[in-house]
């Protein structure tokens, strides 16, 4: 029996310390999912906390034949989708990220080229902004696929969809992201051209 299953069993018997170990183990994955889904560190923190509270509440319903991480992320994804549906009309801002130091990205220590790393970082930020324009469930599928390397079967299990629905949602999301990426590039190019027209020569 692995450590995780032992903690789950102990937590199911009411051991809060064992559940705390599970929180410690999975906090980053759950937080990242919520952050990518909701776009804001504060909302992600709230959602991740709520995900663990719901998991604690429903621990007796956890099927041990399934992966605990998948089960946990499934709770998190459904909670975020519900939350997004509720605040559909509210203004969505992703510009506040990293401003208050409540969230940070794990640095890539193996990166040898700072310039390439900066470009990659910019692209990731751009992608993070573009993600918000996807349908909520499509976004959850994309996050599970690319951030967690979930298979289509695992995504289907977590999001309660059929495998073919997952496949078509992933394709739709990728197409939408490509479209948004193109639009973003066009508008950046337009902005650069406009700036150049109003610029005056330095010498």
């Amino acid at each position: 029996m692995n450590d995780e299953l032992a903690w789950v069993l102990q937590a199911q018997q009411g051991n809060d310390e064992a559940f705390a170990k599970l929180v410690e183990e999975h906090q980053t994955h759950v937080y990242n999912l919520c952050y990518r889904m909701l776009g804001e560190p504060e909302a992600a923190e709230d959602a991740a906390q709520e995900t663990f509270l719901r998991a604690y509440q429903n621990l007796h319903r956890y099927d041990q034949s399934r992966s605990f991480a998948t089960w946990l992320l499934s709770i998190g994804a459904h909670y975020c989708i519900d939350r997004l549906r509720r605040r559909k009309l509210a203004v969505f801002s992703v510009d506040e990220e990293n401003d208050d130091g409540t969230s940070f990205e794990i640095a890539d220590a193996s990166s040898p080229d700072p310039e390439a790393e900066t470009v990659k970082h910019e692209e990731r930020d751009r992608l993070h902004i573009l993600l918000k324009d996807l349908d909520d469930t499509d976004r959850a599928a994309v996050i599970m696929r690319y951030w967690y390397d979930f298979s289509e079967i695992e995504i289907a299990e977590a999001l309660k969809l059929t495998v073919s629905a997952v496949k078509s949602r992933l394709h739709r999301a990728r197409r939408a992201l490509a479209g948004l990426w193109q639009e973003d590039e066009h508008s950046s190019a337009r902005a650069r051209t406009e700036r150049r027209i109003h610029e005056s020569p330095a010498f």
Partner: protein
Amino acid sequence: MNHQPFEDWLLNEKLIDPKQKLDLDAHLRICSYCSALAETGKALRSVKIAAPATGFTARFQTHLAARKLAERRRRLWGAILFTFGGLVMLAWIAGPYLSSFFASPATWITSLIEWGVFLITTLQAIAQAGSVMLRVMPSFLTPFGFMVLVSAFAGFGLLWTVSIWRFARGDVPRGV
């Protein structure tokens, strides 16, 4: 512009041979859509995991303790209200009969028999009223109306059964 088979290769992340790679590179140079698809694919493959601020588990334990306390309070108040309400109801129902509590055993037996007779005659009256209604209703109701009524009853029955089933399965959230 025809994006096939390039779009399929990019979306499904298929392994391609060197010749196909050359074809894809040539297509990417002229097709901004497929180029964007490839760029987003690369960006998605280089994503990073965002981590919460330190002390997440401690904050969770605080939340859990607060939630448990709130739940205990809610249950306590629920139990108090339920008990109090039950006592008031009991007093209201049993009040008129409290005087007979001190009466002789003969009076007790008489009132018990009266209750039994009342219960049986009431049930008989309800059954008779029901059978009369069933006999009379078809002459008032059109077949369509009758079907609507039966469907409504069936719907309510189904709703009730599903609710009981969901509750028994534990789909209805329980307290922490």
